[in-house]
């Protein structure tokens, strides 16, 4: 017993009360002080922005985020970048962990799968400064938004809009004394003149094909099929036409380059998925099919440099005037985000800097303001891209795009590289793809 008649436990309890009271008071003081010093920061909303690594764009966006946060002190942007190939896996991991990012720049072919699961919020048109989808479409070049429209609503703002053109090495063409081909048939006939062999080994090939890269292969192949007058899939993604004559014509043309004309050597592609670009950049291939306007910057610092120019995709003789498939990235906002207004505000802010993206990296986000700007006019060969973009369209919105493109890409790969029987292989692919089509 102590003089006050309290046990040691009671004494401790009093002490604990005092400590708690003191801590509470200190917290109130600190909280109030914080509010006094930084009134806005205390209520700041944080939005997470997940996007793929793209050094020039990442640098630009870091600056843009600073500007945005200064103009909107109540919004903080948590910028998360991961390699492109890992973006969807990162998104899956964040979603499974219960912390899905508020904003993601999904590849255009990934958007349908995410939308189908009800995970995307429709675009906040007011944040984009328009009152209707038609008004917004008026600000973009034709078809730029079509890949992100589902059930009449828009679910992403384009963050990149590209279509593949054919890149040619002018020096190699001059040396060979030929002009670049306008048709696949011409490509086949002039190709041998661009081949150089040393002791039986290919040291220069006419064209580097995308092999072992299903995502790019299907874009090239889909465009060729449409040029041949057909479709790989119906527009609603419910039907596949892999055994049709146009598909056969396209795959026969591609495999002919390897098996018959021998104007490309698949063995040169090695192990990397983007080997066709490497071969072109390193001056081993005279032509290449998987580069958009963004490729200029890479080429400028490569061995090929200014000798590389973009030209329209070849067409089939007598076939429709159709360019490469449109593809790109779209800025989306999660339907589960608690901060959708803030997220769309930031997305709209980024989208209003199309010219900066173009000037920094040649990255076109599909807006008319950039397409018609002085910056674009001064950009070398912009007219080629502009005309081709107007003649391209997105592949159908397939909810199982990755799986379907893997099946089709590997099938084409086996026919082209290994000379597998086209008819049998395409029949097998048709069977594998059918259960995965949109229903």
């Amino acid at each position, binding site marked *: 017993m102590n003089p006050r008649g309290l046990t040691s436990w009671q004494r401790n309890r009093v002490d604990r009360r005092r400590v708690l009271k003191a801590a509470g008071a200190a917290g109130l003081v600190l909280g109030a002080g914080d509010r006094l010093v930084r009134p806005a920061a205390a209520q700041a909303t944080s939005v997470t922005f997940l996007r793929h690594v793209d050094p020039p764009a990442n640098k630009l966006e870091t600056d843009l985020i600073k500007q945005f946060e200064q103009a909107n002190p109540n919004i903080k942007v948590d910028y998360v970048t991961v390699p492109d190939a890992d973006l*969807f896996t990162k998104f899956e991991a964040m979603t499974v962990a219960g912390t899905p990012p508020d904003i993601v720049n999904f590849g255009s072919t990934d958007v349908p799968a995410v939308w189908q699961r009800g995970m995307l919020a429709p675009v906040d048109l007011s944040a984009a400064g328009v009152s209707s989808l038609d008004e917004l479409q008026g600000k973009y070049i034709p078809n730029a938004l079509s890949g992100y429209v589902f059930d009449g609503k828009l679910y992403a703002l384009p963050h990149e809009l590209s279509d593949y053109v054919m890149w040619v090495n002018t020096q190699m063409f001059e040396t060979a004394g030929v002009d670049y081909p306008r048709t696949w048939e011409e490509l086949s006939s002039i190709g041998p003149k661009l081949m150089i062999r040393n002791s*039986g080994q290919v040291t220069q090939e006419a064209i580097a094909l995308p092999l072992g890269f299903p995502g790019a292969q299907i874009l090239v192949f889909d465009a060729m099929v449409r040029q041949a007058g057909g479709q790989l899939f119906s527009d609603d993604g419910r039907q596949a036409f892999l055994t049709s004559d146009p598909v056969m014509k396209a795959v026969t043309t591609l495999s002919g380059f390897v098996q018959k004309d021998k104007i490309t050597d698949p063995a040169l592609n090695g192990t990397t998925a983007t080997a066709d670009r490497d071969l072109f950049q390193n001056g081993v291939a005279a032509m290449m099919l998987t580069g958009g306007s963004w490729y200029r910057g890479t080429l400028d610092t490569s061995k090929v440099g200014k000798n590389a120019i973009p030209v329209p995709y070849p067409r089939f003789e007598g076939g429709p005037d159709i360019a490469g498939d449109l593809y790109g990235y779209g800025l989306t906002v999660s339907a589960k985000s608690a901060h959708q207004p803030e997220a769309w505000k930031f997305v709209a802010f980024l989208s209003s800097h199309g010219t900066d993206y173009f000037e920094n990296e040649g990255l076109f986000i599909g807006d008319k303001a950039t397409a018609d700007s002085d910056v674009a006019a001064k950009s070398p060969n912009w007219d080629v891209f502009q005309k081709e973009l107007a003649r391209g369209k997105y592949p159908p919105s397939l909810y199982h795009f990755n799986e379907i493109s*893997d099946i089709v890409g590997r099938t084409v790969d086996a026919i082209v*590289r*290994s000379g597998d029987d086209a008819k049998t292989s395409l029949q097998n692919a048709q069977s594998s793809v059918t259960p995965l089509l949109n229903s």
Partner: protein
Amino acid sequence: MTTRARAAPRTDITRPVLSLERRQALVGMAFVFPAVLFFALFFFYPMAYALYLSLTSWDLLTPPVWIGLANYAALVSDPNFLSSLSITLRYTIEAAVPLILLSLMLALFLNQRLRLNGAYQVVYFVPVVMPAVVSAIIWGLLYQPSGPVNNLVGIVGVEPLPWLASADYALHAIVIVSIWASFGYDTLILLAGLQSIPPDYGEAAVIDGASRWRVTRDVTLPLLAPRLLLVTATSVAALLTSFVLPYVMTNGGPGTATRVLPLLIYQTGFQFLHAGQASAMAFMLLFITLIFTALQFRLFGREVL
């Protein structure tokens, strides 16, 4: 009386609650507990969860839906699964047999206490310490049309081969890298086994008139059986679950020529968003690995254990 008085129990000493054996057991358990916890958290729990997932339809983005054994039933008629399973078995057999024979021969050779034995051991062990991704990239370059491998086969008059570009060669090309990357480790295990065999047995056999081959066959190899079992079991399990080399070197191509089961499991789960189906494939692979391991135990006999 005095004795009795001395023998009387001392009441001032408290008796331990637990016996010595129990206390020792508790101490032992305390030491083992972190390891058990580690395995439970990072191995057994994920395995149990994967088993549950294999009974669901789960796309990683929305909650799993229980579908019972449907994933397993679908695998039986899934051409991709059956194709990858066949490729995996071919790859495993093609690599395991030469790998074990080569390791055994090298171990027998190095067991002769040659000059520069240490240097040899360093050389053959280097591939083991090299990360698989690095090995895959380097070998990808070596397999280039005008690369060193084609130059080497060119010496004996063979035309340059499209090692990674042709479905006919790609799997063999990966098999070669697998053997190269693993034989150093297997050799080391077998060499340690050989060095633990007392030389007296061989010497006695020689005195009795046994030839060198007979000593190796009837004395050395039976005594080496436990190590051979270890090497075979671990190598086969590693080959059945091999992922990095096919992923980096060919990504399963050309076409699906080198798409082994672990690669298909990865694609199915993370790229195609069928995590339930991928889990079922993983359990099928585990089951196959267990069958292989059981067969090896039977082959080597129970006495080696």
